[in-house]
């Protein structure tokens, strides 16, 4: 029984099963949303149609619960070639006829269910977002969050995710150059896997996700459509219950080789000038690409689903429309140029087939076995069109009064500060992530100037001699949890600071907003406040938001993750010979701390490790102070006054200095004095601080640049020897520091 006797313009519509409100609700729509659909189309939707609405109106595709907040972010700027959200990724003009295309996206839920494939396809998805715009990916980064490594399950998740990212990116041929890994128990059941990609494109060779020109063929490129990943987008918009493993069939499976040839074919197609519009098929597959491309410029499409290459012949219209099989693209080709397109795809052995044509009706009609299964206005499905927009209720989180009233400086402990130093240095969040990044090919494409040696990854641009990009991902979610507004400010500031510490001028951000259930008013308060903080920081630093992704429902068993707005920051270096690195270099160089220690331990790694608490006030952040720091460092970098620069983050100034001893090519000691006497002095996490080393000859010029920018700078000692001495804290051989820093994570992972 299938037919509901529904007609459109006299044509009968076929439905695989009879649809009721309950069908819609089973697929994740609310009762009100189901009613809205019936009202919009003036009839009962078919089963395929209701499935399409359920994915297109999921948070993942529609941003229905987030868009009102996202619109408060600065989303345009002098160098932005497309406005945030308009295309698959942001596009920033870097001069000389080239633009950088970059974006970050989450693949949290799939990675929690199946870490290897979840992470691999996360990488695949973000790479497609870049090359569908005509850009060749030149760098990949990631931001990963897991629970405590004490449990075998977390070690399994970390191993699987890292292998998934590595196997996909390594085979595809993009260098994975940077990222962060953070461990906190709130991520135990719901790890975060945020993948970022950066590409480069000539500004006259960009492609757009549009369908125009009546009669133009709609072509399907790439791998066949299978039953994997159906309802992935909706799955990402729900919380986990205990049976997460049962959801494995909703996870897509990746094939990096298929992606590699799809990349080459896509770039050649765009270069050949045969493409009118192109969009990758990720979340919600053919359903999403047909409707978004059509809705963009008011077109429609006639699509024959029988022509779609299938992995299983008996797939229904519903399954074909919603499949999230990987490594596929939908392209509108200029009529008459189909043969050129086919020749290019044949060269790369990439299947290409026409599945439909562009119309001017604004309607997507899709047929299966000769029956009309879908007839929907494209606009009704998409963000900015018919997709619902909600202002959610919010209220200050109930924990906030309690956590912020704790005086973290008054907490008592028996742990001596020198002991605390080693505990912090061996904290998996602080210790070297070499075990992770050595599994990634970071050098393919021969552009990688710095990876772990600098606070941001530095990638030279062969096309523009002398120029380089800096990129970093960052977010301290404990800060966001304890004060979402300040945490949002700091997430942007710290990623900008990282980029500045590599010698680059921050130019734009992409963000991945990982939060709990938006229907929980306390979660929504976190979301709203974090965005307010990010917006203020982005406006001050003139780093507009080019796009990104929202991942809600990061909860399991009614326990939300800490709010985690991951920032992906892009910076530009005009002279690649002036790149800054983090490690100490030469005997006799003077060590300075820029900025002021306000002795803030709230939300610090110290309080987390020593007191086992996440409490206190998030450190303050003054945007003017922070911005002045950037100006001072960039002027020093330009004048080549610095031997090294490294920002103070988790673990405070003592840990920053210890890292500087062992990050460089050769470990070297330092004799440090005058930092203070207690835990807040050594391990406090006050913002807007950077530790630099300066050769004695440049010391006075350096000091005058700092003075000109009103940035306090304190000489705290000298580089040299094979011992790290920090007055009132410790004296340890550099070898021991190095061993602890580099061997902690491999030791844990071998257990």
């Amino acid at each position, binding site marked *: 029984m299938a037919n509901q006797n529904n007609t459109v313009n006299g044509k009968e519509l076929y439905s695989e099963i009879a649809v009721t409100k309950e069908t819609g609700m089973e697929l994740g729509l609310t009762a009100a949303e189901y009613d809205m659909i019936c009202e919009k189309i003036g009839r009962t939707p078919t089963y395929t149609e209701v499935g399409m609405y359920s994915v297109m109106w999921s948070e993942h595709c529609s941003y229905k619960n987030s868009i009102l907040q996202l619109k408060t972010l600065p989303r345009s700027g002098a160098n932005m070639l497309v406005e945030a959200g308009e295309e698959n990724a942001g596009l920033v003009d870097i001069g000389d006829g080239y633009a950088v295309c970059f974006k970050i996206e989450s693949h949290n839920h799939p990675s929690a269910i199946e870490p290897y494939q979840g992470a691999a396809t996360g990488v695949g998805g973000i790479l497609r977002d870049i090359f569908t715009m005509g850009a060749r990916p030149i760098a990949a980064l990631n931001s990963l969050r897991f629970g405590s490594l004490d449990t075998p399950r977390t070690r399994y998740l970390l191993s699987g995710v890292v*292998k998934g990212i590595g196997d996909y990116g390594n085979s595809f041929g993009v260098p994975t150059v940077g990222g962060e890994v953070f461990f906190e128990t709130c991520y135990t059941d719901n790890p975060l896997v945020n993948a970022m990609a950066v590409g480069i494109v000539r500004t006259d060779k960009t492609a757009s996700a549009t369908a125009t020109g009546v009669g133009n063929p709609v072509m399907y490129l790439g791998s066949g459509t299978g039953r994997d990943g159906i309802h992935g987008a909706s799955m990402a918009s729900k919380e986990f219950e205990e049976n997460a493993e049962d959801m494995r069939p909703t996870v897509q499976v990746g094939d990096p080789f298929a992606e*590699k040839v799809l990349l080459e074919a896509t770039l050649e197609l765009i270069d050949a000038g045969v493409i009118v519009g192109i969009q990758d098929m990720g979340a919600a597959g053919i359903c999403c690409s047909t409707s978004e491309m059509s809705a963009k410029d008011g077109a429609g499409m006639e699509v024959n689903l029988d022509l779609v290459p299938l992995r299983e012949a008996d797939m229904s219209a519903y399954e074909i429309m919603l499949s999230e099989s990987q490594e596929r693209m939908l392209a509108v080709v200029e009529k008459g140029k189909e043969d050129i397109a086919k020749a290019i795809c044949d060269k790369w*052995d990439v299947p290409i087939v026409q599945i439909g044509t562009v119309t001017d009706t604004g309607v997507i009609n899709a047929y299966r076995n000769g029956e009309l299964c879908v007839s929907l206005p494209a606009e009704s499905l998409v963000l900015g069109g018919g997709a619902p927009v909600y202002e959610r209720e919010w209220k200050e989180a109930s924990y906030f009064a309690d956590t912020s009233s704790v005086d973290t400086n008054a907490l008592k402990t028996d742990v001596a500060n020198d002991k605390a130093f080693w505990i912090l240095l061996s904290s998996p969040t602080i210790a070297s992530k070499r075990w992770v990044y050595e599994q990634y090919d970071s050098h393919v494409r021969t*552009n990688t100037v710095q990876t772990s040696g600098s606070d941001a990854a530095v990638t*030279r641009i062969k096309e523009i001699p002398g120029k380089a990009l800096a990129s970093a991902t960052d977010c301290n979610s404990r800060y966001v949890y304890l004060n979402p507004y300040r945490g949002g400010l700091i997430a942007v500031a710290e990623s900008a600071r990282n980029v500045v510490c590599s010698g680059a001028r921050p130019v734009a951000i992409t963000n991945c907003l990982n939060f709990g259930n938006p229907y929980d008013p306390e979660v929504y308060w976190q979301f709203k406040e974090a965005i307010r903080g990010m917006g203020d920081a982005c406006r001050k630093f003139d780093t507009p938001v080019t796009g990104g992704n929202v991942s809600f429902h990061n909860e399991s068993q009614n326990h939300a993750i800490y709010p985690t707005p991951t920032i992906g920051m892009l910076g530009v270096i005009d002279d*690649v010979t002036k790149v800054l690195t983090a490690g100490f270099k030469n005997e006799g160089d003077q060590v300075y701390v820029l900025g002021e220690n306000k002795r803030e331990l709230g939300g610090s790694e110290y309080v987390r490790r020593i007191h086992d608490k996440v409490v206190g006030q998030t450190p303050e952040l003054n945007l003017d102070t922070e911005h002045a720091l950037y100006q001072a460092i960039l002027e020093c970098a330009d004048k080549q006054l610095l031997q090294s620069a490294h920002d103070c983050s988790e673990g405070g100034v003592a840990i920053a200095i210890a890292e500087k001893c062992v990050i460089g090519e050769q470990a070297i000691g330092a004799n440090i004095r005058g930092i203070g006497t207690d835990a807040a002095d050594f391990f406090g996490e006050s913002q807007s601080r950077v530790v630099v080393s300066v050769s004695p000859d440049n010391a006075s010029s350096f000091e005058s640049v700092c003075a000109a920018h009103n940035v306090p700078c304190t000489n705290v000692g000298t580089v040299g020897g094979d011992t790290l001495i920090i007055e009132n804290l410790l004296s340890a051989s550099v070898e021991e520091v190095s061993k602890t820093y580099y061997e902690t994570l491999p030791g844990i992972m071998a257990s």
Partner: protein
Amino acid sequence: MKYGVVVFPGSNCDHDALYSTAHHAGAESVALWHKETSLPEGLDAIILPGGFSYGDYLRSGAIASKSPLVKEVVKFAQNGGYVIGICNGFQVLTETGLLPGALGKNRDLKFVCKDVFLRVENAEAAFTNTMKKGDILSIGIAHGEGNYVASDDDIKSLEDNDQVVFRYCDQTGAVTDASNPNGSINNIAGIVNKQGNVLGMMPHPERACDALLGSADGLHIFRSLAQAVAAV
């Protein structure tokens, strides 16, 4: 000096090999499409680059070794033409039989990307004639299957004939187990065939041609080969 760089659909170091030989080594360099059935005239050397030739879901390099163009590369090598197989290219060369042995999964079963040191073991080869025996090169590796294995007889023959060109070593040149990144027998990082015109190596010399990226030691290999070609 004219290089041809083979491009398989899953090659991902082809652009790098083309760029480094042309831009840094000053040679002419052309891409060779894997479906071609003949080689262009005038090639002095062919590079089989790194990557995942046809996805390498089967044994790495196994399918590539049967591709139309590689058959021509084998003939080219058998006629004395110079061939360099880097990383996946080394795997392809062992699959064709131009070089003995095979590359198995790394000892710790993980992909590894890092800078390593290589000790030059034979400075008489066409690929090393500008170096001295015992020189130490810093060149990066990036592979999951670089663990060189061969029969005892093959190893003995490689060692006896000075066919081992590069060995993994530490910064001081000491060949140690700790400096062996993948478990290769005798720390073998690169070998030549008996005739000395075919080199296979896991480290990536094309990535080590610019001090800005950390090392220019890879250039010595391309310069040596240019000298060998010029000497003919």
